[in-house]
Each structure stands twice: as C-alpha cells, then as structure tokens.
C-alpha cells in the first residue's frame, strides 16, 4: 500500500522534477520548494563526510550531480564535517539528527554497528540486486557485524614501500628489498653509509602486518577478544622492536615530523611504509625526488597488509531509508567508482574498477596488490582502547628496551583496566 503510493508520487515528482531541472538549469535551486515526500514533493537527503582535500569534496559533488540527474526526485545536501568527525557524529547519532548517509571509517565501524545506530543494508541489497561480490572481500567484511552488512566500502588504501632510488644507489642497492630478510641486509648497508633505512611510526596500524607474517594475531574476530598474550605474537613484535634498536627503523618523530611523508620528501630516509596518500603529498612537496613504490615486505611468502577503508552507511534514524539506500548504492556502484578511479584520490573498492584505475595510475600497483592479502584496520568493539593499549606498550618496548613478551603482557593489562 505504502509502496504503491510512493511509486505514484515518485512518478509524479519525477516529471515535475525534470521540468524544474530543465527550467532552472540548476537542481540546487529547487530544494526548498518541497520537503518530505508528501504533497507531491521531492525527498531531501543529507550526506555527511569529512574532506581531506578540496579535490575529495569536488569528487563527491560530481558523483552527486550524476546521481541527482538520474534521480531527479532526490536532492542531496553535502555536509562536510571539519574537526573531529567521530566526536561530531556521536551526539548527532544519539539524538537522531545524523545525516542520512555518511562516511564511516572501518576502525570504529564495529562500535557504531554494535550499538544499533546504523541501518542494516541486507534487505535493500537483496531488493536492489546489488552486486556485492564485486567488492574486494576483505573490504566488504570490514563493514559486516554479526552476519549483517552495515555499509559498503567506498574506497580503500593499503601499505606499500616507497623507496628513494638515489639513496639506495648510494649504498649500492639497485633493486629495493622484497622481504624483511632482504631489508635487514640492505639496511645494514644503508646504515653504514649514514642513511636512515626505514621510517615507520610505532603504531599497530602500520606494523601489524609484521606480527601477522610471523604467524601471530592480536585479535580474535570470532569472539571479539584481544589475544595479545598468545605466545605466537612474540617473534614478529620482537623483530620489529629489534630493528629499532639496530637503528634500521626510526620513527617520523625521531626525524622531526608528524608522519613519514616529509622526511621522505626531504631525502632524510631511504624507505617509508605508507599508503597511497603519500603520492599526492610527494607530487606537491618533492617534485625532483626519484622514488619508486614496491610491495610491502613479505616474510617467507607471507604478505599480510593493513587495509584502511571507509564506507557509506545509513543512519537508522533516517526518514527515507529507500532513497538513502538508493544513494548509497549509487555512490558505491560502478559509475561512481569509475569517477573515483579517474580522480586518483583513492583505490576503488570494486575489483571491476581497479583494472581501469591501474591503467590510468600504474604507480599504484603495489597498493592495489596490497588489498589482496590485507586485513582491515579494525579490532571489533575494542577499538581505540585496543589501539592505545598496544601502541603505548610497544612505544615503551622500543624506548625502554623491553622484550616483546613484556610489551604484550603490558598491553593486555592496560586493555583490561581501560575496558569495563
């Protein structure tokens, strides 16, 4: 009954919308004349996002323009959150005034999903026959919680090794190391020449692949539990800590920067392990730098990686779930993903678009490769407490020369005191 009524209004609205759209030549001017889907009006949706650059906002606006052309009865207003995104979203979600569709970072997605503020999408996915098999599986999984899907990944990033060709050549290295074992050999050569081999922050978001490659795991996804004290975790973490003590790895802070981009751009360090976000930064700040990008180091055939992904999700409080789902499926659909691919801002989450993306941006091959063996950067509902606990313990391990076993024990204790 409701659906039929909506279909009728939608048809009526569509014709009006097209006329209005033609007349004014600008779909934005029509917004205020009709609100809600009553009285033969159109539906207004809000899209919440952060914007890491003006180019990102432009991309989303272009995607929305295309969406509004295809769906003239739906108008979308963009709301860019400046400042702390999660802090802004929490009270709005709690008070049911959140944007209808909005960005959700994988790192805190489980917390939002488990507290029931996001709309489960499964019914809508079925109804609209959305091809979700096309998404890189690990990316899709990042937004599923207890068997339900709460968001679709809009794009992704992974870690790769960026290397300074000139600095490696100075130490007589002509191909960048591919494994952690090669890295240790080359690092010794670089260090002998007084060059810092690698810069990485002491952050589980960056070094977790090392732990995974050595057969460890900090987190049990099935039970949503931290497993720091598992003995298998020690060797990988010890390897990471030892490399700091050998002087093979230095933190960006040691080199006087917030992240590894600036020291790499200034030629202070031979290699860094960053995501594709470093490329635009290097294009701006290091035009003459001879650098290459290669796959993240492996360990005896194991090539774990860390995935950073963001979804579009729908607030449970939305008044227009059908239209919001339509918008979400468009923004994560092939057409919009193609626009993402062409912009080069991030790697499209759909496998079918990753090929096009690579053709246009061959430099990003290592990042796309990284998606395959990657684990999303998220630790269930333990979230920030988990990350803080292990990061602080590891930092203490590196600065105060503690063993990996002590670090892991400390992380476990801290996490227990921080969660109730």
């Amino acid at each position, binding site marked *: 009954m409701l659906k039929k009524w909506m279909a009728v209004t939608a048809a009526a609205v569509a014709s009006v919308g097209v006329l209005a759209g033609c007349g004014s030549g600008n779909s934005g001017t029509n917004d205020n004349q009709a609100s809600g889907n009553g009285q033969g009006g159109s539906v207004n949706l809000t899209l919440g996002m952060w914007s890491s650059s003006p180019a990102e906002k432009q991309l989303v606006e272009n995607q929305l323009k295309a969406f509004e052309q295809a769906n003239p009865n739906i108008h979308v207003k963009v709301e860019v959150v400046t400042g702390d995104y999660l802090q802004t979203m929490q009270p709005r979600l709690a008070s049911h005034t959140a944007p209808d569709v909005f960005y959700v970072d994988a790192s805190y997605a489980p917390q939002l999903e488990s507290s*029931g503020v996001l709309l489960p999408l499964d019914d809508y996915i079925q109804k609209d026959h959305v091809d979700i098999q096309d998404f890189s599986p690990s990316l899709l999984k990042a937004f599923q919680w207890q068997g339900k899907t709460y968001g679709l990944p809009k794009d992704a990033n992974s870690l790769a090794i960026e290397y300074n060709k000139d600095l490696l050549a100075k130490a007589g290295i002509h191909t960048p190391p591919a494994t952690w074992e090669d890295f240790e050999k080359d690092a010794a050569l670089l260090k002998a020449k007084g060059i810092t081999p690698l810069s990485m922050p002491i952050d589980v978001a960056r070094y977790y692949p090392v732990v995974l490659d050595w057969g460890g795991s900090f987190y049990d996804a099935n039970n949503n539990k931290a497993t720091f004290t598992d003995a298998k975790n020690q060797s990988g973490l010890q390897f990471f800590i030892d490399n700091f003590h050998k002087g093979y790895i230095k933190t960006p802070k040691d080199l*006087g920067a917030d992240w590894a981009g600036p020291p790499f751009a200034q030629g202070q360090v031979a290699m860094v392990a960053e995501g594709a976000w470093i490329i635009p930064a290097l294009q701006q700040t290091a035009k003459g730098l001879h650098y290459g990008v290669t796959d993240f180091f492996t360990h005896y055939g194991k090539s774990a990686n860390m995935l950073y992904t963001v979804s579009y999700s729908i607030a449970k409080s939305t008044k227009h779930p059908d239209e919001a789902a339509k918008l979400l499926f468009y923004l994560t659909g092939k057409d919009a993903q193609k626009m993402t691919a062409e912009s080069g801002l991030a790697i499209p989450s759909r496998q079918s678009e990753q090929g096009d993306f690579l053709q246009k941006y061959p430099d990003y091959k290592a990042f796309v490769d990284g998606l395959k063996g990657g684990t999303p950067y998220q630790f269930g509902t333990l979230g920030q407490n988990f990350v803080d606990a292990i990061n602080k313990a590891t930092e203490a391990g590196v600065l105060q020369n503690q063993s990996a076993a002590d670090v892991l024990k400390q992380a476990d204790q801290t996490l227990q*005191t921080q969660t109730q």
Partner: protein
Amino acid sequence: MSMGTSETPTLIGRPSVEAAGMPPRKRKPLGRNQKDEALAGYLFVLPAIASLVVFLLGPILVAFYISFFNFNFLDPENAKFVGLANYWHLFHDPQFLRALWNTTLYSLGVVPTQTVLALFLALIVNQIRGKTFFRVAYYLPQVTSTIAVSVMFIFIFSQQGLLNQFLHLFGIQGPTYTNDPKFALASLMVMAIWSTSGQFMMIYLAGLQDIPDEIYEAAALDGASGWRMLRYITIPSLRRVTFFVVVMSLIGTYQVFDQAYVVSGGDGGPLNSTMTVVLDVFTKGFKTMQMGYASAMAFVLFFIILILTLIQHYIMGREK
C-alpha cells in the same frame, strides 16, 4: 574546553570596592511595590537563567546522573546502572592515576612560576616607560590560539628546532623535547607559562593600581623603600588578587587539554607523559565511547579543584 578566564573583569572589581571600604548602598524603593520590581528584575535575567539551566546546569546534572551508569552515547537505551563502580574503577585505573599525577605535576610547575612571573612583569610594566607597548606585548600570547602556540612550540622544541640550535652553540645536543618522556610535560609547562602569564599580569596591574598612593607615601615617610615596600605593602595589599590569580590558574592548569592534545596527537604520548585528566576524559568519552566513565572522571576532577580552592580560601581567609 574553556579555560574559565573570560569572566575575569567582573571579579577584578571586587577587591577595589571593598578595599576602599565603601558601605553597601541602600536601595531606595522606586515608588512601585517591591514585588513588581523584583519580578521585573527576574524577567530581565530570565533569558540568561534559562540558557544557563539548559546549557550548563542541565548537562551537569545529566553528566552526574550518567556517571553511575555504564553509558554509551550511541546506545542510551541499554545503559546499565553500576552504582559507584565507575568511581571505584577510577582509582584502580593506572592511566587515570597517571593522568592525575601528570596534571598535578603540571599544576605545581605552572601555577607558582606563572604567579610570580605575572607579578614580576606587572611590577615592571607598571613603572617603566612605554607601558602600553609592553602590556600589549605581554598580553599577545593570550589572544593567540592555543593550537597556533602549540604548533610554534613544537618547532622550537623539535630536534633541529630553535632551542637545540641555541644549545648547539654550547656543544649540547638536545632531544626532540616533545617526543621525549622526560621532557614532554616540561615542554607543556613552558608553553603554558609563556602563553598565560600575560593574562595574569593584566590582573595584577589592575590590582596594583587599586593600592592607594597614601599607603606608599606613609611608608616612605617611615623610611621604607624598595624591597621592604614590596614585601610589606604591595604583596599584602594584593592578597585578594593573588588568591584570584592562583585559583584561576589552578583551575586552568587542572583543565589543560589543547596543548597536550596537539603535542601528543591526541594520545597523551610519549608513554602517557602528556596524558592529562581532561585528555583522558575526552578519549574515554568520544573515542572509546565510555561516556559514563568519562563523566565520573569529570566529577572527580571537579571535586579535586573544588577542594583545592576551598583549602586556598581557608588559608587566605585566615590571615585577615
């Protein structure tokens, strides 16, 4: 994260009125009956009271209420009453205890230095030529955004920063101060002293101008000069101002947040050495979504500040 400094002007006036010893003015009835007048008065303050109740008192009460719950902002329906468990847990939480310790150290470092420095600056600025220029110069850091100040100090304290370049002249090789657990908190203290001394200097200046000249003249006739005048006249006369400065400074330091947030990138590092109570409250409330626990923390902080203020009030009051 207000530093509680905007209300200073209303409070500076007080010591002057009482110092001058004016009797409270008697209110003359204006012909209308007093009830009407009172009603009009209340009507005038109604907007202010309403907004205070809605935006200040209400949230405080709600925060107090949820501090007894295991409360997640996003899922208020499933809040679980836990009694005093949040408060009990606080005193077994090493991170909170560390934050409290850091904040106390910070306060002990900043408040006395800042108060002495502010008084010193005020005494100088009160006497030299070009008063206005120096007043502006010393007050400038206060109007600069804390974030900008923090970023500037990060440059000064970095490995190749200004401070290390200077020390290099004497052959000393310093670390990245904000990234060294031994120096990070001290860097925050220096930053705070630099940026807020000017504000308290202004308050002392106002206080200095309220001391009647006759007292100094009388003292001069009695042969007092220089140091003795300062010790026996200026400082005792400024007692109420000092009380005010110390209390405001204490409240400000116990609520330190912005500098620690910027310098550590929000995590209180290195090794929790810049974790402050308010930063911990922020992390628990908005990052890990334990709003009930964060509220309990905020109330503990409130009681600490309240008790410290009462102690000072008692000490200052006793002298009178």
